[in-house]
C-alpha cells in the first residue's frame, strides 16, 4: 500500500501545471471560451507535443502506456485551470473504447488521436434514458456489411469540436435490456448525421445529434455485436474516475480562493475570516475536499477490479465528489458575497463547472442506487 507519486508522475504534474499557468489564466480562458471555435487548437497541438494525447495507449499502439494514476494527475491539473479542450472525452472515454478495439481499428484510429489530428466525442445519452446507460432507443440494423443507424443523442459533450463519434446503439432487445447494446464508430460528417451545436453553462460546448438512416460499415463495430454493455460500463467508470479528478482540482482552487478572500476582506473592522461561523464553514469545505481526494485516489486505484468492487468504487466516488462539488461551490460563492455572484471573478466559473460535474454520468441519487444495488 503506497500513496506516493513516482518521480515521473511528479514531473508530469509539473509539466501540466506550467502549461496551465502559461496558457490558462482567467483572461486567456475567457478569450478561448468566447471565441467562435470555443477551444484553442494550438493547445491541443501542445498536448500532442507533450505526449498527453498518447498517455493511456499502449506503447505498441504508439502511446505512453500510462495508467489511471497519470490520468488522474492530468485531469486534476486541468481541473485547476478549467481547461475546456476535450481531453477526457477524447482520450479517456473514446480512447478507452479504442484501446480495447480490434487491431485493425487500433491501427486505423489511434495514431490520429495521438498526433492531435482527430477529436472524438462519445454520444450515449438519450433524453428518456436519464443516467441509465442501457436505456437506448437509437437503433442500428445490420444489412449485409452495413449498419443503418437511426436515433437521437442529447448533450453530447465536445461534439462541436469532434470529427469522429463513438455512439451507443441498440442492435437487439428491448429499450432497457443489457443485452443488445453495441458501440459504433461514426464519422461526424457521414450522411444523415445532423448536429445542433450550443454552449453549455460551464463554458464548454455540446450538441444534439440526430441520426437518420446513417450507413455505417460493419468494420466500425467495437467489440461484439450486442455484447457491449459491460465495456460501456467499464469505460464510463474510467471516465467517472477522471471527472472526479478534474473536480478535485477545481475544488482545490475554490477552497484556496475562499480562504484567501476571507483573510483580506474586512467587515466590522476585521477580516471576515476571523469569524468562527465562517471558519467552520471553510473547515467543512476543507474536509469535503480531503474526503474527495481520498475517494478519487481510491477509485483510480480500483479501476482494475471486478464487479462489484469497481461499481462500488466508481459510484461511491461520484457520490462523494458530487456532494463536495455542491457544498464547496455553493459555499465559495456564499463566502465571497456579492463578488461571488459576478462574472469577473473566477469563483462563479469554477462553481458552474463543478455544478455540471455533479450530474455528468449520473447524479447523487443515481449513484447511491447503483452503490446499494452492487451489494
Amino acid at each position, binding site marked *: *500500500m*503506497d*500513496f*506516493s*507519486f*513516482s518521480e515521473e*508522475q511528479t514531473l508530469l504534474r509539473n509539466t501540466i501545471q506550467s502549461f496551465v499557468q502559461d496558457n490558462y489564466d482567467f483572461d486567456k480562458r475567457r478569450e478561448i471560451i468566447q471565441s467562435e471555435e470555443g477551444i484553442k487548437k494550438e493547445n491541443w497541438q501542445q498536448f500532442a507535443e507533450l505526449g498527453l494525447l498518447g498517455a493511456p495507449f499502449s506503447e505498441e499502439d504508439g502511446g505512453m502506456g500510462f495508467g489511471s*494514476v497519470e490520468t488522474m494527475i492530468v485531469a486534476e491539473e486541468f481541473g485547476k485551470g478549467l481547461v475546456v479542450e476535450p481531453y477526457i472525452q477524447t482520450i479517456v472515454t473514446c480512447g478507452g473504447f479504442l484501446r480495447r478495439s480490434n487491431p485493425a481499428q487500433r491501427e486505423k484510429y489511434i495514431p490520429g488521436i495521438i498526433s492531435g489530428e482527430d477529436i472524438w466525442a462519445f454520444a450515449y445519452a438519450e433524453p428518456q434514458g436519464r443516467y441509465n446507460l442501457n436505456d437506448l432507443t437509437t437503433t442500428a440494423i445490420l444489412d449485409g456489411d452495413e449498419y443503418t443507424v437511426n436515433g437521437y443523442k442529447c448533450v453530447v459533450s465536445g461534439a462541436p469540436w469532434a470529427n469522429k463519434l463513438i455512439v451507443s446503439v441498440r442492435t437487439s432487445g428491448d429499450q432497457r435490456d443489457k443485452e443488445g447494446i453495441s458501440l459504433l464508430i461514426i464519422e461526424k460528417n457521414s450522411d444523415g448525421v445532423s448536429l445542433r451545436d450550443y454552449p453549455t453553462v460551464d463554458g464548454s460546448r455540446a450538441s444534439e445529434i440526430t441520426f437518420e438512416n446513417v450507413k455505417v460499415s460493419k468494420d466500425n463495430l467495437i467489440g461484439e455485436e450486442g455484447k457491449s454493455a459491460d465495456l460501456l460500463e467499464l469505460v464510463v467508470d474510467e471516465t467517472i474516475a477522471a471527472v472526479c479528478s478534474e473536480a478535485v482540482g477545481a475544488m482545490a482552487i475554490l477552497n484556496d480562493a475562499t*480562504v484567501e478572500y*476571507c*483573510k483580506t476582506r474586512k467587515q466590522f473592522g476585521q477580516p471576515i*475570516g*476571523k469569524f*468562527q461561523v465562517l*471558519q*467552520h464553514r*471553510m*473547515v*467543512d469545505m*476543507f*474536509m469535503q475536499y*480531503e*474526503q*474527495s*481526494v*481520498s*475517494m478519487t*485516489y*481510491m477509485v483510480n*486505484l*480500483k479501476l482494475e477490479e471486478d464487479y462489484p468492487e469497481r461499481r462500488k468504487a466508481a459510484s*461511491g466516488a461520484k*457520490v*462523494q465528489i458530487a456532494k463536495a462539488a455542491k457544498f464547496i461551490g455553493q459555499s465559495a460563492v456564499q463566502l465571497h458575497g456579492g463578488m461571488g455572484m459576478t462574472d469577473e471573478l473566477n469563483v462563479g466559473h469554477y462553481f458552474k463547472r463543478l455544478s455540471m460535474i455533479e450530474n455528468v454520468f449520473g447524479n447523487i441519487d443515481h449513484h*447511491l*442506487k447503483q*452503490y*446499494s444495488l452492487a451489494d
Partner: protein
Amino acid sequence: MDIEFTKEDENFRLEVRDFIDKNFPQNIKDIDKRTDLTRDDMFSWHKALYKKGWIAPHWPKEYGGTGWNITQRYIWDQECANAGTTPLIPFGLTMLGPVIIGFGNDNQKDWVLKGILSGEDWWCQGYSEPGAGSDLASLRTKAEKIGDHYVVNGHKIWTTLAQFADWMFCLVRTNSDGKPQEGISFLLIDMKSEGIEVKPIITMDGGHEVNEVFLEDVKVPVENLVGEENMGWTIAKYLLGNERTGIAGVARSKKAIERLKEIAGSEYIDGKNLINDSDFVRKISELEVDLTALEYTELRTLAKESKGEGAGAESSILKIKGTEIQQRITELTVEAIGHYSNPYLVPAFERQGSNYLTIGPDYSHGAAQNYFSTRKTSIYGGSNEIQKNIIAKMVLGL
C-alpha cells in the same frame, strides 16, 4: 501509488487471524461488550497481546513497538474488528506512551513504558475540570513545589475509568502569571496517594465510565514531572495529536455497518425486509460512502506519518468524521430496530441471580444505550468544534 496487498501482506493477515482466533479470551467473546466487562476482562486481551509483543503497534520498535508498516497496521485493525476483539484501553498505550517516548527522561521511559506494555499499570487522564472543558488552558488544579514534592490541590472531571486506575497523568497549574498556556505542567500521580477521592458520574445510558477526581494536598514526587516545569501545554497538544489519528475507528465502524445490515435483514417493513427498503438502504449507502472516504483519508494520513512527515492538524478531520460516522451508525441501528429499541435492559452485573426476562431480539439489547453513550465521542478528545478551530488555525491559517 497502489493499494495492492502483497503475498507477504496476505501471509501476515493469516498469521494475525490465527493468533486472534487462538488467543482472544473465550470468556469475553460472547458477552455484551459494552456493559458487562470487569477490570480483569478488559485486561485479559491486553495481556495476551503483551505476551506476543503486539501490544503497541504504533510505538517505535526500540520501545516495544512491532515495527509494522501501514499496510500491516491496517490489516491488524481490520482483523481485530472482524473478530470483534474488545478495544484496548487507550490511556496508557495511545496517549501517555508516545508522550513519555517524546518527552520523558530515561527513568520514566523505563518504568512508565514497562507498566503500560505489561498492563500492570492502568492509567487515567486528568485533563478536564469543571471550569476548564474546551478551554482546557484555563485549568486551575494547582501544584506547588515544596521541597522534593509537588503538593496538588484541585478537581478533575470526566476522568474515564478512574475507578480502576493505578495512575493518572495530570495537567496542573504551576504558574499563574502570564499566558495561561505557559503555566501548565504534566505530572504523573499515583492514584493511591493520600488526598485523592474518586466519585462516579452516571451517564444517561446508565453506565459508570466517567468520574470526578478530587485532589487535596496530594504529594507528588518531583521526579514525576514529565518534561520541564510549565511545558505541559506543549505535551498536551502533542498527546491530542496522537489521539486524533487513532480515533477514526474505521475498521470497527465497517464491522458495525455489517451488523446494522444484518439487523435490517431481520426487521420487516410492509411485508419485506428493511434491508430491501430503498429509503433505509439509501441511508446505509451514504454512510458507507462516507466511511470509505474516511478510510482512505486515514490511510493517506498514516502513509504521511510513516514517512516521518507527521500527521499534523489535518488529522483533526479523522476525529470529526470518525465520530460523526460512529454516531450515525448507532442512530441508524436504533432506527432499524424500531419498537424494541425502547425497553431498558438492566446490565447483566445488576441482574445476576434474578429471573430477569429479556425482551425483544438479542440485537436490540443495549442499542439505545449505545446510541446515547456514543454522543460523547464528538465531545471528548477535544470537541469536534474545537477540532474545527484547530484546522482553521493550523491548516487554513485563519
